[in-house]
């Protein structure tokens, strides 16, 4: 088990290999479909972004609302592929270093990750109640009108992920599935 703390540097990412189990500590940011669209539109319009993503991690999640006395509701990953159209630009131009989600990525995303030393982590899809317990603080910092799609700043403690695709392009899905495949 590898412990890392945000913000991430290229040196930390270079040591992470597909399949490594990692515990993330520190600040991460949430963002999903609508927030990605707005970030990219804002950037293209030459306007100021509501969050500095340099060396940061985006967690693809739209959490449930927090009950009274709780930090956040269920908060598991959503399907990363829906963000693929926006991700290369966010890596290249905004300096994003890491992503947490579930499911595969396009070759364009993987190329951007290799070129700019970024990493893609997987969290367990559907384990929302369990993952919420590792989130110690949550506040909305942008796009509140988007409801569950707003950008949250989260403080996480030992948030459990596995390296899905490393900065060399190694892909845990491909390796894992090939091992158990019986079809021709």
């Amino acid at each position, binding site marked *: 088990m590898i412990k890392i703390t945000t913000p991430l540097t290229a040196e930390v990412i270079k040591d992470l290999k597909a399949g490594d189990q990692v515990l993330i500590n520190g600040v991460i940011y949430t963002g999903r479909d609508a927030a990605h669209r707005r970030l990219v539109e804002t950037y293209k319009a030459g306007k100021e972004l509501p969050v500095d993503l340099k060396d940061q991690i985006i967690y693809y*999640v739209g959490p449930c609302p927090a*009950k009274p006395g709780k930090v956040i509701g269920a908060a598991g990953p959503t399907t990363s592929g829906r963000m693929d159209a926006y991700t290369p630009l966010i890596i290249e131009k905004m300096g994003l270093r890491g992503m947490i989600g579930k499911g595969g990525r396009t070759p364009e995303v993987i190329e951007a990750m290799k070129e700019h030393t970024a990493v893609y982590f997987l969290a*367990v899809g*559907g384990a929302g*109640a369990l993952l919420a*317990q590792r989130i110690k603080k949550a506040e909305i910092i942008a796009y509140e009108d988007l409801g569950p799609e707003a950008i949250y700043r989260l403080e996480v403690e030992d948030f459990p992920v*596995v390296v899905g695709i490393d900065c060399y392009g190694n892909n845990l899905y491909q*390796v894992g599935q090939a091992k*158990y495949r019986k*079809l021709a």
Partner: protein
Amino acid sequence: MKEIPVELITSTVENLCIKACTVLGDDWWEATNKALAQEESPLARDLIKLLQENARLAVETNEAICQDTGVAVVFLELGQDVRITGGSLYAAINEGVRRGYTKGYLRKSVVGDPLIRKNTGDNTPAIIHTEIVDGENLKITVAPKGVGSENMSGIKMLKPADGEEGIIKYVVDMVEAAGANPCPPVVIGVGIGGNLEQAGLIAKKALLRPLGQRHPLPHAAALEEKILERVNATGIGPQGLGGRITALDVHVELYPTHIGGLPVAVNFQCHAARHAEAIL
């Protein structure tokens, strides 16, 4: 003639929304225990145990199993001798969804217009399917449907000549294309026959059948077994990280169809096979 007041329908739907999003059925526990026994990959076994731990925790803390508490899909079996009193049936259901998702602190995931995409803020409207049946009961099933699995679903108008092999190939192709996205181990609803919309509807209804229960018709049950075996030979496994158990179960539903047609719909359900029922 039985009278059912709309207030009772609203409070029932409210409770069913919360229950479905937080409590998984006994059939789910049996299916995941069976999956644990069959799974060869140590990582996949750990993942299934983690999903069970998550399900336990959800009940214990009254928290949603998954943050995608979905669109509320509501199935009604309305006895023809029932009279709804005090208001509109569909308005009562939507009010129940509104209250359930608000009071239960469930996520509101519905946009009011698919192009403008503004969140309605209360998870309404529900998607309501009504079937008129004999008798004087109203059966309400609430099945919150997440989008990770729904997005991977599809329909294909096969030719009669494609036959069973064509059906199996289509389902397996869909499973392979879906990979990790629908949160395996999935449940797969396969609707065969009818027409475009009927195939889709019976594929969705197939997801409501308890896990581990086979279709009553032997040839349909045999097809379920065949598809399950092939799907679990893909190696995709829990969370797509490799393993034996890509699907917890496959449920086939059949419907009469045209002499020239063989529609097949595949509806994926993530491992959180959520639904709750009540009879009024």
